[in-house]
Structures are given as structure tokens and as C-alpha cells.
């Protein structure tokens, strides 16, 4: 098992851009390399942060062969001496993919999008016919460990962007946005990110106000149930809004503005101030029924979420360690398969030969019963020995028989024939 790839740890964005491939190119590249014959299985992952080739090959110099294939089939790839490549083999390759799938190797620690990308790579390799038992098992383990890391630890907890943090505050105050009005003041990048993150909560009607109407319309087009409002209607809109995302310059909202907005209203008001300088006077936080979150407050939420994620890293690494060990045991067990296969073939040949001694005029039902009994007898005689040899091959326990013990006992030669 080998892996060669470029990721955000070692390669800058312009290099990653050159080797990033879409789904169809990834499938074609994997199929082309597979057709060269030196690799039995191939899977290729390509995201904005990494492009990686996973290869199962009987060749001892599989890592070099993988890099050579990479350079041949990706013309824009940097030279091997660029220092952009990460190459691993054996257990290190297994561990790398598992870490990738958990989000431990992601630019944003614990991000979950990578799990979908690993799943796509797995499905693509299967559909392209470049997947075999070794990589199939590895990708299944990667998807399983990714889910466990997300469900059993806090590696993916909390929002780690201003937008996500704003959405988390909205959830903590309102749960959902059903029957709620969200006012977005400003249509720049930060306002758009926050508005989209809040929109993901579901429900809610959005009202976008911006000095340049075209920008407001462009943002409104990306939000559900969104309407454009003129900036001079801000006071009236604020009085009806449940959440206000403010990221436009101009005179900040005063305490008096906020107090006016709070008059005669039923629900609390959440003000998310993303402006620098601020869009809302900090003293407005003291108004009854108002929750004011500025950039500093959102950053502390992000920092808290990241800290919680970092705290989870040792636990996730322990999960990865367990899974790597389980995979290695399985791989070592696979090493005993040719010998075991020969053993069972040999026993079956004996069974079939002995069955020929049965009288020709034997009742068909009785013959069928004998077939069943003898087949079962062979399975039961060899079953325990098989299990112990598989276990012995996968562990370092000296009390368990090895493949060599099996070969010696039954007179199986290196090729597996008795």
C-alpha cells in the first residue's frame, strides 16, 4: 500500500490548483494508471486542499512507481524535488487516509466536508473498476472512523467562522428561524457569509438593505425567501426583525435607535455586528430583550470551538490508532490466504476422490446427504486450524501457528500445492 500526494501543509495554493482534478478527470487518470499494470488497486482523492493517489501494488518500489505515474499523467505537477510531495507506505499510508477522513489533516480542524469527498473518491474508484479488497477495506475504515470522530468526540463541534458562530448564537436564542425575520444590512463578503450561514438554519424571511441596490439584489438571490429593502427603511425593518446582521459602514445604531426598535415588540432582538468600526453602539447590549454580538464576541466563540476541537484531537488519534491496528491485523491475515486456499483445495480434492468410492446405484437422496455430510466434515476439521492460522498471521503471538507451520504440517510447498 502506497500513497503519494500534495496537500495544503506542503504546497501553496497555486501548486494545489495545478494538480486539482474534477471527478471525471480523476476517474480517467486512475483508470489510465491502473491499466499500466503495476498497481492492483488505485483511488484518487482531489479537493481544494489535497490531491492524493492511494495505490495497492505488489511492487516493492510502489511509492516511486506511483510518483512516476503521477508525473506522467499530471503534466502541471511540480517536480519531485519541489518539496511539495508527501509519500508514505504501509501503515503510514493507512494512518494518513484515516487522519484525512477525520478532518485531522484539514485546513480547518475537524471540518466534515472531507468525509463526503472521501466517500466520493471511494465510489468513483469502485465505479471505475480500480478498487479491490485492500483499498475498499481501507476506505470503509476511513468513512467509519470519520463518522465516529464526528459522533463520539467534539472534533467537529461548534462554529469556526464568523458566519457559523453567528448561526450558533441564532440557534441559542431562537432555535429555528421559522416565522422569523432576518435583516441583513450590507451586501459585502462578510455580510453574505454570515447571512448564508444563518440561512442554513432553515425557515426565516430575509430582508437585505444596501446602499448599492444591485449588490443587495445579488445577495438576496442567494438567500431563501429574500427581499430587498432601501437603506432608509432601516428603522422600520429593525423594529420588526428578530435577527439583524449588520456589516455596512455609516453612522452606527445608537442606544436610542435600538430602544425605539424594541418598543411595542413581542420578541427579543439579536444584533450581529460584523462591522469595523462597529455598526451598533456597544451600550445597546444593555437594552432589555437585546442580545448584541460584535466581531470580538464572535471571535471568542470561534476560539472556544477551536479549543474544544483541539481538546478532542488525542481522543480521535486514539480512534485512528485502533483502526490502523485493526486494518494491519486484517492485512496480515490476508497474507495467509493463498496457503489456506491451497489447504482447502487439497482437502476438497480428497473428499471428491473418496466420494467416488460410493456405489453407483446409490439412491440420489443418499448421495446428496453424503455430499453434505462430507463437505461439512471437511469444513469442521479445517475450520479451527484456519481460524488460528489467520489469527497467528495477524498477530505476533508465538503460541499461535504461522503459515509456515501450516505448510510444514500439511506438506504444502511455497506455491501452496501439497
Amino acid at each position, binding site marked *: 500500500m502506497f500513497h503519494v500526494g500534495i496537500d495544503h501543509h506542503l504546497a501553496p495554493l497555486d501548486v494545489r490548483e495545478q494538480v486539482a482534478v474534477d471527478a471525471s478527470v480523476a476517474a480517467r487518470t486512475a483508470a489510465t494508471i491502473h491499466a499500466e499494470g503495476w498497481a492492483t488497486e488505485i483511488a484518487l482523492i482531489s479537493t481544494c486542499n489535497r490531491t492524493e493517489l492511494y495505490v495497492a501494488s505488489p511492487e516493492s518500489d510502489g511509492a516511486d512507481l506511483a510518483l512516476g505515474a503521477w508525473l506522467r499523467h499530471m503534466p502541471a505537477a511540480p517536480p519531485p524535488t519541489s518539496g511539495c510531495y508527501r509519500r508514505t507506505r504501509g501503515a503510514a499510508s493507512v494512518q494518513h487516509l484515516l487522519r484525512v477522513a477525520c478532518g485531522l489533516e484539514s485546513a480547518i480542524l475537524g471540518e466534515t466536508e472531507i468525509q463526503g469527498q472521501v466517500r466520493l473518491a471511494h465510489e468513483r474508484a469502485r465505479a471505475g473498476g480500480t478498487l479491490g479488497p485492500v483499498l475498499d477495506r481501507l476506505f470503509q475504515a476511513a468513512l467509519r472512523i470519520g463518522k465516529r470522530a464526528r459522533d463520539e468526540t*467534539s472534533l467537529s*463541534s461548534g462554529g469556526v467562522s464568523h458566519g457559523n458562530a453567528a448561526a450558533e448564537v441564532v440557534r441559542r436564542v431562537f*432555535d429555528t428561524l421559522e416565522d422569523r425575520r432576518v435583516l441583513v444590512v450590507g451586501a459585502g463578503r462578510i455580510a453574505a457569509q454570515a447571512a448564508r450561514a444563518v440561512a442554513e438554519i432553515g425557515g426565516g424571511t430575509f430582508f437585505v438593505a444596501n446602499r448599492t441596490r444591485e449588490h443587495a439584489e445579488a445577495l438576496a438571490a442567494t438567500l431563501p425567501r429574500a427581499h430587498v429593502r432601501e437603506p432608509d427603511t432601516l428603522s422600520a425593518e429593525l423594529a420588526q426583525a428578530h435577527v439583524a446582521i449588520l456589516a455596512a459602514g455609516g453612522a452606527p445604531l445608537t442606544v436610542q435607535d435600538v430602544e425605539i426598535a424594541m418598543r411595542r415588540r413581542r420578541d427579543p432582538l439579536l444584533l450581529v455586528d460584523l462591522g469595523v468600526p462597529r455598526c451598533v453602539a456597544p451600550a445597546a*447590549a444593555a437594552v*432589555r430583550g437585546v442580545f448584541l*454580538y460584535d466581531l470580538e464576541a464572535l471571535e471568542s466563540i470561534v476560539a472556544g470551538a477551536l479549543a*474544544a476541537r483541539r481538546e478532542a484531537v488525542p481522543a480521535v488519534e486514539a480512534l485512528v490508532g485502533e483502526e490502523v491496528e485493526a486494518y494491519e491485523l486484517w492485512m496480515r491475515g490476508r497474507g495467509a490466504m493463498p496457503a489456506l486456499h491451497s489447504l482447502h483445495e487439497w482437502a476438497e480434492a480428497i473428499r471428491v476422490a473418496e466420494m467416488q468410492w460410493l456405489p453407483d446405484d446409490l439412491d440420489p437422496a443418499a448421495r446428496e446427504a453424503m455430499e453434505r455430510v462430507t463437505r461439512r466434515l471437511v469444513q469442521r476439521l479445517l475450520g479451527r486450524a484456519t481460524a488460528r492460522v489467520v489469527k497467528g498471521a495477524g498477530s505476533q503471538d508465538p503460541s499461535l501457528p504461522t503459515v509456515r507451520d501450516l505448510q510444514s504440517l500439511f506438506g504444502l510447498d511455497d506455491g501452496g500445492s501439497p
Partner: protein
Amino acid sequence: MDTMAVPLLVLVVAGYAAVATGYLEARRRREATPRWARWAGPLTVAAHLGGLLLLSLATERSPFTTLGQSLSFLAFSLGTLYLVLEATSRVATHGGGFYALAAAIAALSVPGLTQGEPLAWADAPRDVARSMHIGLALMSTAAILAGGLLALGYLGTHARVKRKQWDGGAHGPSLDGFQRLLRRASLLGVALLAPAFGLGLRAHADTAGPLEIVGLTGTIGVLLALLITAFWIWWRRPRFGPLAAWLNIAAVLALVLGFGVIHPLVLRGGL
């Protein structure tokens, strides 16, 4: 009382206490409530129901004919109410308080159960109206206590959100979620208390003295006023949530104070 009921009603105290510990410890560690506690809670409440039924069968009376039995029934009502809340909301992070209070009330009931206290109305003929009055009063008490606990949860969450204190880990209901729960708890308190009061007046009009009637009416009137006001704020003006939460807490305090009046009446069989 030759029945399994009393040992069972004593044992549930340990059950509630264990479950409360599981919930509170998980909250302290900012972890999800352990699965065993999630199972043990309903099992303890079911065992409590079994104990009360056995008691009722053994005495051939309602399971709240003494102070000890009434407290045990109150603890059971609180536990049951919490199970409904947990099944319909994300209140599990605050479950420790409910189970701890249920454990405390169930523990207070133990002396009354084990000392063979004579039944308050042992000699009195059966009276369905009186039984319904007591049952409804105890259930409304559970609803008011639940409202108080939820109000504490709301105030804690409100303070953290207002002060931007983000503690991470699993969090309970949103402020909006608390608002809905408290609105229902307040309404339930009113819906149970009002008929309990009416039935009580009807059942004891002949036996209760004027002072007892005045004391009881005053207590119930204050409770109803607090609960109705709290309900209205939760329903129509949730932005004044902290005020409504304090009203729910005040209702609990009024209930505890009022108990000083109701308690002797219950003991004397005057209710």
C-alpha cells in the same frame, strides 16, 4: 402495611438519586447524558408508579391519604412530568435538577411511609371529589416546581447568552425553547390548580373554618395570579422573559410558604 409498596417507594429514592448524579455529572463534564441514566430514569418512574399502585391496592384508598404518601406522589408527578419534557424537548441537560428534586421529595416521604403513620382519613367515608382535589393539587404542585426549575434554566441560559459566555459542549433548549416550555408549565399549573381549588372548596366547605378558607384562598389566589401573569408574558411578551422566569420562581416560593398553611390542614384531614 403488609405489602411490597413501602420497600419499593423507599428504593426509588436511590433510583432518583443515582439518575440525578448521572445527569449532573454529565452536565459538569459537558458531555451527553449517559445512556444508562436515560434508561434508569423512566425505569425508576415506572417502579414508583408500581409502588403507588401496590399501595393503593393494599389500602384500598388513593395513594395520597397521608403526608408521606402525598410527598411520594408529588415526587412521582415531577418525575413523570420530566419524562414528558425530555421526550419533547432538549431539556436533558437540565434533567439533573428534576431528578435531584424528585429524590429529595421522595426521601422526605420515607418517614411517613415507614413509621406506619395512621391514615388521615382512615375512618372517613370515601370521597371521590376530595381524592381528585388532592391529586390535582399535587400534580399542579409538580407543574409549579417544574416551572421553577425551568425558570432557573432559562435565567442561566439568558445570562450566558447576554454576557456572551460560551461554555461549549452540549447545550439545552434555546431561549425560545425554554419560553415554550415555561409557557406550557405555567398553563398546566393554572389548569390543574384552578379545579383543585374548586374541588377543595366543595369538598371541605362544611368542615374547614373561615380562617383556613381565607388562608387557602389567599395562597391559591397569589399562585394563580403569578402563574397567569407569567403565562401571559411568555405568550405575548417573551422579550421580558427574565421577568416571567422570576414570576415562575416566585410561584414556587409562594407554594412553599403556602405549604405552611396547607400542611397542617392536610395533617388534620381538613382538606
